[in-house]
Every structure is written in C-alpha cells, then in structure tokens.
C-alpha cells in the first residue's frame, strides 16, 4: 500500500515545515541555527518569477532546480508527497463527504495554468506577484500572520483563565503544561499582526474549498502546481494500465486531481500527483507506475486564446499597478518604513515574495504586512510600524530569513549604519516642550553609540510663571537611523510625541532631508 507510505512522507514533510516555522524565532542569539526558509529555497515558482522580475537571484535558490529536475523525472511528486499546503488540503478534504453525485470542476484544472501565465507575464514585465499565490509563500505568510498568532492567543487565554481561577491541583498542572508548550511550540510572546483576520480568512477559504472539491486549490488554482504540471508532461515515471482493466471506474472517483485515471487514452500526466491511489484501489491490480513504461498520453490542451489572454492580462497588470502616485519618481510614503537592508523601493517590490518570514522573525513584532501603503503592487510586503515594535539595533534576523534578498543579509556593523528613516519630534505633544514636564525617555532608549537624540537644558515657565529647569530632546539627523525605539517607548499615549518617517532612508537617493546624506551608508 503506497498510500500509507505517502501519508507518512507527507506527514514528515509537514512536520519538517512546522518545525522550521517554529524555529523562525530568536532565542537571543543573532542566528537561528536552522535553515528556516528551506521550503522557499526549493520553490521553482519563486525562483523563476524572481529571476524574471528582478533579474537577480539569491544563491540558495538554485536548490529549486533540484525540484525541477526531479519533476521532469517523477512528475508532480512535490504536490502529492511534499507540499505542506497540499498535505493540509488533504487533511481538510477528509472532512468532505466521500460521495458526491456530481463533483464540480470538469475543465477547471486549466484555471491554474492561466494564473501561472498571468503571474509569469507580470514578472517578465517586472512585477513580482507570484508570492501572493505561491503555495509555500501563502502557507508561511498565513501561518506567520494569522494561524499561529490565533493559536497562541487561544492557548494563552485558556491557560490564563485556569491561572486566574487558581483551581487546586488543576492550575499547577496546567501551568506546567503551559511552560512546556511555551518552551516548545508556542511563541515567546504573543504576535500581533495587522490584517491577521484578512490573511487568516483567505487561508481558511483555501482550506474550506476542499469541502467543494477535495484539493480544490491544488487542482484548480495553484500556479506552482501548474508550473510543475508543465514540467511533468513527459515525466519518465509513468502510469500504465494493463489489459486487465475492465473499465470498472473504481479509480475515477478517488483521483486527488483531475488526471482522468479511468480514461486510458486521456490520462493527464500534468495533473497526476503521483499519489498512487488509483493503483491501490484497482480491484484488478491493472494500474502500475514505473519508469519509461508506456508513452505519455493526454496532451495538455489549454486553449491558445485563453493562455494568450491570461498572459496579456498579466502583462497589462504591470502598468495598471504602476499608475499609483506612489510609484511616481520622488514620491515616498512617510509611513512606508522598510526593514533594514531592504532594496530600493522599485527593486524591493520586484524581489519581495510576501512570504512573511521577516515579519515572523522580527524580534519586536514591528514588521507588519502592508495593505495599500505601498500600492496594490506592494500588497503584504513588510513595513516597520515602530509604535508596534522598533528595529532592534543589534538584530539582523530579517535579512537572514529573506529568501530572495529583497532584504539584504548584512553583517551587523553594516546593518547598524542603515537608516530606515528619521525621527521627528511633535513639540505640541512632547511633555518637556508642551507641558513643562520632565521625560526624555526617547533619549534614554536611543540605541546609537553616540545618541542621535540629544538634550538641551532649558528653563521654562509653568502657568503661574514659576521657572522650571528641564531637559528637552532634539534629533541629530546625522546620527538618527530611524529604528523607532524612541517612538515605541514614548510615554505619550496613543499618538506619540516622537515618530519616525521614511525620509532619510539609506536605500533611497531621493527620499532625503539633508543636503548631504550622512556618511557610513552601506549603499554609497
């Protein structure tokens, strides 16, 4: 029974995926110790679209060529045996009633090829949209920004509840369990993400589609599946049906994809996930998979007009996305503060695959997904929201986990010189300026070796005219790196009295305040 073997293998890959996912978290050192982006490194769709869109790829991406090679030999084994989203779809699909009179979607399998054509066309013209729909990227992003935070919230609420009830016997036991979970699978601290509910709902929708048709995503939508399907058309590992077959149709209903196993002539190699179920269920044992047996059957007829339409749509999407004012030269959004080492904005958008790894690993939780801040083209790219979390001065993790180099991996000394923007003081809200009240928390928490926030001793007067000596903060733009520690810690509630904007960011030539950019930039 190959089905059991396959399920074990699927389980192992899913476990590896989840393990690497959980390890995408700092334990205090500046390295993680595990190749946490491994699944992305092996992803040929990410490889191809990044290559096309940005004309540059990170070294490890060549690993994905292994998947390409194996797919040419074995077919879509990745979908059937490896892909974590495929496995999750299998699990979700097991909730669907086995028999349905009329499974929907005859012919819908072509849709994913059109999605692929769209995504490839837009990447040829320089837009990286694949990350939105790539299954690995989608799964990591959904887990990072929605599923895992929600599970963490649920677990914490549960254990907090029992802690507050303080039940004899029960609470001590639950605390021990909570402690074990915190040390193993739960995050160090509760992650909070903008759009968690949106991204989470989309992911639940993908899983929910399994109730309409099992592996709905894999059959009809997945562009990576489509790419692997194209590569599998002439796979060496082929399905053969012997003369024993009496066309009983037992295999027709069990196929995980739309490979038409019951039709000896039309069997679609590009759709077969090599799951071997048709082999297992055949009462005559007429089905077998083997190397170089038989000949490829069932050519992939996608309809030339449809493919061309999809390709043209993808191509036209690029200018359509770029007519946003944000894409105009010399336009910058004040709040679009990119992670340290992020490429210049147009290049960044061509390279970022929205996998969410940087947001998952960000030690303060300050990296958040954009919605429209960077235009629709920049959907779900990372932006630093200092009020949520600042950029830790001695941390380089986001650059380490970025699979495409959209955030450059910088040595610590270089990273510490990267300016994300500049801080500015709102004198109408700042306690020493507006309210003659001592504070200077911003100066205290400023992490640069020579503090970018300096203080001036002044004498001000209160309402009664009494003189008060106090310290007022100022920002030294030649020192400020825009990390946002001041904004994060500013005790002025809600709207902070010191805040970072993107002007002065190292990665941009144009978004500068000073006549001469401060020295020490790694980009100059």
């Amino acid at each position, binding site marked *: 029974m190959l089905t059991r073997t396959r399920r074990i293998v699927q389980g192992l890959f899913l476990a590896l995926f989840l393990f690497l996912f959980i390890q995408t978290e*700092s*334990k*205090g*050192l500046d390295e993680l110790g595990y190749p946490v982006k491994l699944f992305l490194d092996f992803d040929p769709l990410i490889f191809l679209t990044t290559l096309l869109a940005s004309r540059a790829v990170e070294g490890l991406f060549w690993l994905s060529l292994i998947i390409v090679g194996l797919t040419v030999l074995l077919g879509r084994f990745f979908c059937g045996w490896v892909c974590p989203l495929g496995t999750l779809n299998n699990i979700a699909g097991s909730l669907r009633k086995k028999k349905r009179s009329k499974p929907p979607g005859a012919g819908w399998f072509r849709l994913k090829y059109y999605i692929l054509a769209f995504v490839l066309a837009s990447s040829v013209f320089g837009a990286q949209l694949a990350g939105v729909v790539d299954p690995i990227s989608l799964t990591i992003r959904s887990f990072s920004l929605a599923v895992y935070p929600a599970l963490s919230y649920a677990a914490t609420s549960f254990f*907090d509840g029992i*802690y507050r009830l303080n039940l004899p016997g029960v609470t001590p036991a639950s605390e021990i369990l909570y402690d074990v979970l915190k040390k193993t699978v739960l995050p*160090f601290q509760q992650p909070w993400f903008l759009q968690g509910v949106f991204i989470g709902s989309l992911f639940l929708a993908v899983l929910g589609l399994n109730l309409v048709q099992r592996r709905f995503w894999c059959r009809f939508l997945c562009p990576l599946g489509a790419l692997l399907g194209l590569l599998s058309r002439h796979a060496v590992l082929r399905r053969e049906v012997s003369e024993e077959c009496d066309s009983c149709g037992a295999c027709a209903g069990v196929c995980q994809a739309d490979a038409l196993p019951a039709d000896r002539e039309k069997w679609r190699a590009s759709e077969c996930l090599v799951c071997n179920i048709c082999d297992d269920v055949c009462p005559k044992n007429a089905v077998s998979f083997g190397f170089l047996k038989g000949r490829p059957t069932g050519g992939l007829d996608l309809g030339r007009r449809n493919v061309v339409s999809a390709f043209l749509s993808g191509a036209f999407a690029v200018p359509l996305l770029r007519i946003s004012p944000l894409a105009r030269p010399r336009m910058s959004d004040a709040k679009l503060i990119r992670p340290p080492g992020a490429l210049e904005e147009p290049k960044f958008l061509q390279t970022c695959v929205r996998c969410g790894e940087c947001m998952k690993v960000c*030690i*303060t939780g300050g990296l958040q997904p954009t919605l429209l801040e960077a235009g629709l083209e920049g959907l779900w790219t990372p932006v630093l929201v200092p009020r949520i979390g600042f950029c*830790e*001065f*001695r*941390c380089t993790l986001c650059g380490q986990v970025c699979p495409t180099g959209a955030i450059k991996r910088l040595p610590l000394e270089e990273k510490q010189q990267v300016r994300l923007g500049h801080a500015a003081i709102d004198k109408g809200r700042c*306690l020493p300026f507006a309210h003659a*009240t*001592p*504070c*200077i*928390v911003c*100066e*205290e*928490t*400023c*992490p*640069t*070796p*020579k*503090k970018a926030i300096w*203080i001036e001793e002044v004498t001000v007067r209160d309402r009664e005219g009494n003189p008060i000596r106090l*310290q007022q903060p100022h920002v030294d733009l030649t020192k400020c790196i825009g990390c946002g520690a001041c904004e994060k*810690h*500013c*005790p002025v*509630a809600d709207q902070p009295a010191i805040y970072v904007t993107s002007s002065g960011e190292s990665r941009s030539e144009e978004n500068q305040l000073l006549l001469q950019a401060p020295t020490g930039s790694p980009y100059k």
Partner: protein
Amino acid sequence: MNRRKFLKMTAAASAGLVLPMGLPGLGRIVEAAQGPDLVVAKGASTPQIVRSALDAMGGMKRFVSKGDVVVLKPNIGWDRTPAYAATTNPEVVGTLAKLCYESGAKKVKVMDNPVSDARRCYKQSGIADAAAAAGAEMIFMDNRKYREVQLNGTALKTWPLYNDIFEADKVINIPIAKTHSLTTLTLAMKNWMGVMGGVRFRVHQRIDESLVDLIRVIKPTLTVLDAVRILTANGPTGGDLDDVKRLDTVVVGTDQVAIDSFGATLFGMKGSDLNTVKLAAKAGLGVMDLAKLNIKRISV
C-alpha cells in the same frame, strides 16, 4: 520600674533564653553592627573581588540561609555585550549565584524586565550563560505576575511590581554603575525600575521621587554595585567602548542609599549631587553621608 515594664523585660529576656533561634539571631545582629557598612573591593579577578567583598561583609551565610529562594536582580535592560557596560557584569552575577548556593540556597532565580527584547538581553549580556553555569534559573518575567503594590509615596501611591521579589526569601540587587541623563546616574535605586510593570516610562515625569517611593517597599537583603566597568557617557544604553571605564571594583552593602551615595564618587561626584540619594536620605531610607559609614576597602 512599674509592673508593666518589668513584665515586658522578663518576657524579652526569657524569649532570648528559651527560643533556640533567639541567640544566633542576636549574635548576627551584633556581628552586623560591628561589620563594615560598605565593602569596596578592587582587583583584576572579578569572581575574586565579589567573593572577597562578601567575606569582608561577614560571608554570604550572613545573608542567605539554607533552603532560601533567592532572587538576583541585575541590570539586563539592554541588548548589549558585557564590554559595553550597559548591563551588569555576568561574572558578578554568576559568582553571587554560586555564593548563594554555597550558603545553602534552595533556588536562585535571575530576572529583569528589560527595555530591549528579554531573550536578546539575557543572552547577549552573558548573564544567561553565567547563570546557567552557576545552576541559577533565568526567569522571563510573566505579565500575569505583577501585582499592584501599595507604595504610599509622594509620587507613586501604588504600582504593579513583580511578585517574585516579594515572594522570595532573599533578594539581591546587582546594579551596574552608568550615566543617565534624567537621574544623572543609574545605580541601585534606579535598578528597581526593572521590576516595574505598567507604563513605567511615565514615572520619568517625577523620577527621583518615584525611585525613592520604590525603595520604601523594596528592601533587598544585599546590594552589590558592579563597577567592574562603568559607563561614563551615552548611558544607559552605551555602545561606544570609549565611554567605558574599567574600575575592576564592586561595592557591597545592605543600605542601597549608601551604595548609591558611594557610587556617585566613582564618577567624581558626591551623593548629594544625586536627587534620588538626597530625597531617600531625607525620607530616612538610608545614609547619604559617607563620613558616617564604616567603609572597608580591600584590594585583591
């Protein structure tokens, strides 16, 4: 002598004679009264100056008893390595943890509520490794375990403080000596901001009084000021080795106000230059005048 006075005296005397704990306890108080108020130990070996300082104070056994749960509260507020003197020296913390165990402590816990990420602070400061080597447990502070404490101070009436320091049998304050723009220096008193929950940066509005209010209720068994390296500018975060001065010194005592008053001298100042020290001494929480203290200086 009236009848009431006579009865009181008899009761006290018999308590002293009858209770087995009475005499050694009394002896300890006498010994303490005779010992130095502060010990300032200087020497190249950090573990050795800590050990010698404690010996000069009458030994760690004077402070930690068999079966005690001890909380060590270093300053681990920032993500810095030891050379930058932004966090307490890990060898000081490790040696104190060992001394506690040698004195029979059941458990030694090390904790702080840092400003930077706690995981990084604990690891990068070297304190996590030093604590582990000494068998002490690093505690990440748990949001649920702050409780509203009555301070009845002049600036703070109540504040959420970390429960462990009140539940522990013994508490040792282990600050590092650094500059700080608002309080001039950060020493022992300022180190208690690391057990505050809530929006603690709000206390900066009246920080000197707030720190005095904290030590109205936080009474450590012992305070060990780490001046192995001190940070002389750009504190409390530091980051430039040029701002670090090596003094190879620790200052040990039980009076945190006296420690802070002495700490000021390390920076060429006087205790009276620090508002916190002045206010605390005025409130009767400790001694500012170093001339009134028995200070023992040792070189190792």
